[in-house]
């Protein structure tokens, strides 16, 4: 070991520094894979809507290029700067949500979730900004609180600063899934920082009980009410009964997964992408399973597993609490998105609109996810070898 290290030292000028090539490789692989899959999935619909099969691919390529630049930027700038810029980051992200109420806000598919950037036709989804903003802000806040994190007052403070953007996202953009992810990130970070286990498990149990009661209630009412979330839960329980409307997308996604067999129909051979509206968004995983089979789907899950594992390593060896908390936030973010997305696609949980990182179509998402990866790489860069051992 020590010989290896010393030889490495001699080769590299900064021997004590560590760079997570595995993470970078996994991310780049996922990016390229995501673009290929996106093209395969979206070409059909893009052709119908825009007479250009590569329409979505081009937009995503631009966003990916921009995101890579941001990632490099985040990697080059010492992450400790964010400890000082945490409050501005928080404020800016919240302002971006509020801007949706201004004329800059843009509606698409009946939902007002986007911000128009200039007249270029590009748009930004503030919910994605908030996700990163909350990671930076909470990491700085928890670091500042230090050991006081265990106090109920601190927990209340963290809950308050989280609930504010949570409520904004929920009520301004009517985007429950993004709000849930923001809450989830906050919960994960708080859980990591607080040495206490008991209260979190009690909280989880209470949440589980509430969910079960809610499900029982929904089932008891049985009939449709006006609320679409209500219907989604019902449709989740009996997808076949709502095949025409609420669970149409879910069911078509399931058909896609089921018809893929083990090695799939082959890249680009999906039939279900013609049935599934906007298959390139939330349901992209089902088309992966159809085209590349169960094998392809499991490979994607494994890649995300590796990504999260690399985050764990970086977090575990972070030089300081702030760095570790940043990486923990990113790790929580990726974990939640991947788990929720695949759970929705396989109808394990009711339908919410969570995208699959790097693969689903969405420019803002890819830019900020890459920025977060940049932060993680930056933290890994500052990990000294001594501490890694």
């Amino acid at each position, binding site marked *: 070991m020590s010989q290896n290290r010393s030889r490495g030292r001699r080769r590299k000028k900064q021997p004590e520094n560590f760079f997570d090539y595995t993470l970078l490789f996994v991310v780049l692989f996922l990016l390229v894979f995501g673009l290929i899959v996106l093209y*395969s999935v979206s070409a059909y619909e893009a052709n119908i809507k825009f007479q250009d099969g590569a329409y979505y691919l081009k937009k995503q390529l631009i966003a990916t290029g921009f995101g890579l630049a941001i990632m490099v930027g985040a990697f080059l700038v010492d992450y400790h700067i964010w400890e000082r810029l945490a409050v501005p980051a928080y404020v800016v992200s919240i302002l971006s949500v509020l801007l949706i109420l201004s004329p800059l806000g843009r509606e698409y598919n009946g939902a007002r979730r986007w911000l128009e950037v200039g007249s270029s036709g590009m748009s930004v989804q503030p919910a994605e900004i908030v996700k990163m903003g909350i990671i930076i802000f909470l990491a700085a806040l928890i670091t500042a609180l230090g050991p006081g994190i265990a106090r109920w007052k601190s927990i209340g403070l963290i809950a308050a600063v989280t609930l504010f953007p949570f409520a904004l996202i929920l009520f301004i953009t009517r985007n429950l899934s993004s709000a849930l992810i923001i809450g989830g990130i906050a919960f994960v970070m708080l859980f*990591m920082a607080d040495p206490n286990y008991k209260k979190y498990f009690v909280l989880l149990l209470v949440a589980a009980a509430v969910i079960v009661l809610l499900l029982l209630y929904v089932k008891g009412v049985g009939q449709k009410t006006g609320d679409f979330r209500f219907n989604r839960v019902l449709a989740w329980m009996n997808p076949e009964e709502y095949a025409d409307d609420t669970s149409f997308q879910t069911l078509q996604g399931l058909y896609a997964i089921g018809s893929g067999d083990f090695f799939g129909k082959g890249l680009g051979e999906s039939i279900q992408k013609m*049935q599934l509206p906007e298959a390139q968004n939330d349901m992209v995983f089902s088309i992966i399973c159809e085209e590349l089979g169960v094998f392809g789907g499991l490979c994607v899950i494994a890649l995300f597993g590796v990504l*999260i594992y690399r985050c*764990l390593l970086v977090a575990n060896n972070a030089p300081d*609490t702030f760095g*570790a908390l940043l990486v923990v936030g990113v790790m929580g973010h990726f974990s939640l998105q991947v788990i929720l997305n695949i759970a929705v696609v396989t109808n394990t949980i009711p339908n919410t609109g969570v995208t699959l990182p790097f693969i689903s179509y969405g420019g803002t998402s890819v830019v900020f996810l890459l920025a977060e990866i940049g932060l993680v790489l930056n933290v890994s860069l500052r990990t000294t070898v001594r501490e890694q051992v």
Partner: protein
Amino acid sequence: MSNRRRRKRPLTKEERRQKEKHVKRQLFKSMQQKEVLFFWLVMVALIGLSARVIYLSREKGTEYSKQVLAQQRYDSRTLPYKRGEILDANGTKLAYSEKVYNLILDANAITESRKEDALTETMGALGRCFDVDVAELTRYVNDNPNSQYYVVDKRLPYDQVAPFLEEKEENASITGVWFEEEYKRQYPGSTLASSVVGFTGTDNNGTYGLEEFYNATLNGSNGREYGYLSEESTLERTTIPAQDGNTLVTSIDVNLQSIIEKYMNQFAESHRGEYREGEDGVKNMGVIMMNPKTGEIMAMSDYPNFDLNNPKDLTPFLTESVISGMNDKETYDYLNKLWRNFCISDTYEPGSVAKALTISAGLDSGKLTGSETFFCGGKLTVSGHEIKCHNHSGHGMVDLSGALEKSCNVALMQIGEREGKDTLMEYLYNFNIGLKTNIDLSGEARTNTLVYDPEKMVASDLAISTFGQGYNVTMIQMASAFCSIINGGKYYEPHVVTEIRDSMGTTIKKIEPRILKQTISATTSDTMREYLTNVCEKGTGTTAVPAGYVIGGKTGTAEKQPRGTGNYVMSFMGFAPADDPQVVVYCVIDEPNVADQPHSTFAQEVVRQILTESLPYLHIYRTRELTEEEQSELEELNLLNASENEAAVDSEEGSDQTEETDDTLEENDNPEQQEEENAFAIDPDTGYAIDPDSGDLLRTDDFSPVDPTSSNLDGLIGVENDPSQTTDNTTGANPLAATSPVGDQNDSSGGQEKQGVGAGFAIGDDSISIEYNPDSLRGGNSESSDFGAGAGF
């Protein structure tokens, strides 16, 4: 608590820092532990989801794969083909298919619509444009918000759909309504030629008549519109167009068809309930009008007709109470009787019309020479049976012509004895008696079991066979056989369809007249025509002769079985003109509703009326001077035109238009004829009309283009058998036999056309000597441009 406070105080700075560092390290350590715990939780979740994916693929794979394939169907749509049309000889539509629209309501599209007023606006427009119950439809949409296919109304014509489409164009709130295309069979003549045309329901399956016989020809194949994914992953829409069906052009002439139907109805209606109370004027009745030179059916009808657009409607025939009292079987039986074509599907004993067959068989076989005479004492005893002649006091001495003229049964029985059963049966077989004629209409009866087997025939069978009793025939068999007797012995297969065109109007098949056999020699045929002319000139058939014409024919009165009940089948078979038959009319009346049935004059009267009206239409001109009585009768029918009524020359059009008759068809007929003749300039050199558009020469009789390579005289051939040449009556072998009154009328106005015909023939073949009369030629030129001008050439 107190313990901790006590400890805190003595801590030094160094200790405090150490302590803080320791706490921080502890925190960091717990965080590291929790990170690992979190990681494992995530891994468990991912593994669980992987298991779920595997489960979905393994357990639901087959089911979902089927679902995926099943959904592909929605991308394809059937395009219905258009069934071909049925046209008459002049291109008038007897049947065609019209595009109609089914009104489909998509409730889902209305409920999903972003417009608040989608339901009210759509329902409002539907209520304005269609005869629908808006309240009920609204309820349907509210009750079935997910329904996407609800047929509101079927088979709407385009002019009903168009206003709605306009409204939809202007009002964006109208949604969820679309139209499915379909074809609907239309019969513009409604009852016209109903049994001949037949009808077709929604399934494009013809029933009866041409619709059934030519079902496959009329039908096309459905097209399909479907989408598929191309190599570039773009959805390509491909349309395989429907192959529309072929169109039939028939030899039926709507005008002639209307004429025969008019007089049939007139006859049947005039005898309605006359003897048998509450019954139709006839039990059955049929008329066939046929071209003896081609076997083409020009008109054919039975009684009564039914509405092809509504074939199951019994209200024109029965009262409401009778209809509601009928069970399914009775209704079905009644409908089948109504729909079947009496002319081809029903058999009967032909009666005396068959005497023409018997005598031609004797002449042709050489068993008769034409010079025989027979004595009729009113009855004849054949192997113990006493068979009476219809004239119980006897006809006295009759020759062959006389036997036909007087329709003498006793003479015919003696003829039959001379022929022997084998000869007679052989000839009947040659005349297709007992065989199908293979006419191109569905439902022709088989008669092979309804004729005598020569092996088992006894003398009395032979005796009654000679005058058409004891065996059964169909009308079309008799008409076709008779055509061969008068046309020189050529048996043409009777047919209705002359041409088949594809959907673009291109002729793909022409059905030429088809000679099946030579039944008798041309010489025998000439003799027969002469005898049959005598029947109408001085025998039993005088009633059938239309004013101004010389025709031939044979009457028939057959007693129906069981004998002695007073039920008869009356018939008359006539042809005109006598010297050059261009049309054969056969009328059969089964049990007229009169007290005293056995009078062939019933059928003769109908034939006379039909010929009186149709011969001028067929451009066959009167050859005899009209008596004043006849003239006034024709004037009443509005059948005199300028060429025949010199007094009306100056005001021909005026008189045609002002003279009111209750026959609308005639009004269409004659003025049209004159219009045509007036509209076309006549080429002074050839006598043909000149097409005003192209300058081509047209034949004046049917306005078809003149083919300079052929003489185009088929309409004129047959004059070679002109009976005006007086020869010895007894030399049956002489083709130009018999004394016909036609020849005596060369100088009369009626004779001019006839001479025109003769002169016209001379163009084609001047080796045959024809009486040539310069006066008649001049008359032809001035009054009958077609033939007369031909003579000038």
